[in-house]
């Protein structure tokens, strides 16, 4: 009997703990900075319980489509957000942040890898994002642009592509493989290298005219009103306002994001 009671408690505990006031679904590239932002928000609103949920934007969108309990969604690209907006799952999105791509290399290879052209060296181990996720689609866009430019050319791009050893679903996985030292270079967001643990990697900027601008739209999930109270609704608005406040925007900029960008 005691065992059954214990099992019941174990099963029910998470259900009780789930009573968060505000559940934010955000692209995994935002994990460090949003944790920091949320901490300072909670200093001002100690009673509000915020639950942050990080994953690839596509995975999050799918979860929202399957009815996951989100209040706010911050995506790392507009395509996913538009898809949710079209199916009426989110309200009109606002552009929160921008980001751009950067080449991240191991410190010991930095003297040899000075520009994107050096990625074509035979035997180099390159890891990029999967074309299905934002980081990967931006990278493919960059490659397509470089192939068009006579200064780089399609032959160079196909030599770079031959060096790809893995395509990751999450930008954090690219950084992790670099930090493990198992690959030589990766293409990630500029903000990823501002994280504490990634400081040891060297950032090499990419040709500005070909560097795609990533944008992070955010939106309130619609249709949650029936189940949530007016209080939760107000909390979502409060938190949104906090994200757009000058202090928070400065924090974003400090973490390598582009702020105040036009869409």
């Amino acid at each position: 009997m005691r065992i059954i009671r214990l099992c019941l408690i174990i099963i029910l505990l998470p259900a009780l703990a789930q009573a968060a006031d505000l559940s934010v679904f955000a692209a995994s590239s935002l994990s460090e900075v949003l944790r920091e932002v949320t901490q300072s928000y909670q200093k001002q609103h100690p009673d509000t319980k915020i639950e942050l949920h990080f994953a690839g934007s596509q995975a999050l969108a799918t979860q929202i489509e399957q009815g996951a309990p989100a209040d706010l969604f911050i995506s790392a690209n507009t395509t996913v957000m538009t898809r949710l907006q079209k199916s009426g799952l989110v309200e009109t999105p606002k552009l929160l942040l921008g980001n751009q791509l950067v080449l991240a290399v191991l410190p010991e290879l930095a003297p040899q890898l000075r520009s994107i052209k050096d990625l074509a060296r035979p035997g180099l181990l390159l890891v990029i994002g999967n074309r299905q996720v934002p980081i990967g689609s931006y990278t493919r866009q960059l490659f397509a642009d470089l192939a068009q430019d006579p200064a780089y050319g399609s032959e160079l791009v196909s030599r770079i592509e031959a060096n790809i050893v893995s395509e990751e679903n999450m930008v954090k996985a690219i950084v992790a493989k670099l930090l493990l030292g198992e690959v030589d270079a990766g293409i990630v967001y500029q903000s990823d290298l501002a994280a504490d643990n990634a400081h040891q990697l060297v950032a090499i900027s990419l040709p500005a005219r070909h560097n795609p601008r990533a944008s992070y739209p955010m939106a309130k999930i619609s249709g949650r009103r029936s189940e949530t109270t007016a209080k939760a609704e107000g909390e979502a608005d409060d938190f949104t306002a906090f994200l757009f406040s000058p202090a928070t925007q400065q924090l974003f900029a400090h973490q390598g994001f582009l702020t105040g960008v036009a869409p």
Partner: protein
Amino acid sequence: MNRPRLFTSFLALASLLLGLLILLPIIALLLASSPGELLELLFQHQVQQALWITLLSSLLALPPIFLLGLPAAYGLSRFSGRLRRLFDALLELPMVMPPIVAGLALLLAFGRRGLLGNLLADIGLRIPFTLLAVVIAILFVVTPYFVRRCTLLFDGVDHKLEDAALLLGASPFQTFTHVTLPLVQRNLAAEAIMALAQGIGLFGTVILFAGNLRGRTQTLSLAIYTAFESDPQQAFGLGALLLLISLLLLTAVKFIAPQEPVR
């Protein structure tokens, strides 16, 4: 007289619930895509590539699994003592290791900054992000299970038959190859298929150690994970496909393995 009946109905109820718990998700997955959609998937180049990598890596892992696993299993079955118990415990380690941890551990052992990194670099062998890494991952995870089941198999072989062969002047090796192995050959064939089925489903260990690159290391499980990011419907279809393959292999096991015990 009442109590045993109560107990029997409790057993029946528990089994029924467990059966439903297993069947419900399986049926849901199979219902998520039509047979036409599944057939269409089979004709996609990307799916064919993933299917090929999956089968190839599992098949390539079979010979080393047998080469290392069979002697270990026979030894475990025929000898006892502290060393056996120690080896038994060692075999349990990969079984209880979370797949992600196994992947990390393999990277730390065979990666270029791993324990054997310098040694492997000297002979010019790079393991991570190759098909070899997929095979090693399968070997690491599947062999302990294989050894476990084969030990039980050898335990079931009548010792008197082996003793007779030894008395008649056969060497222990001859006894093993001419008496023991023929007795269990059908079971071993079933075990081979079982190992194949287990290798096909591997995910966490593979994605960490071997990366995710279409046509090189992307197995069906990794293709499902990748597809989930952009096209959940395709992920459902691929999932059903993988499930059908597993069901097919399991049926083959049931068909090949003799119903009666070996002795």
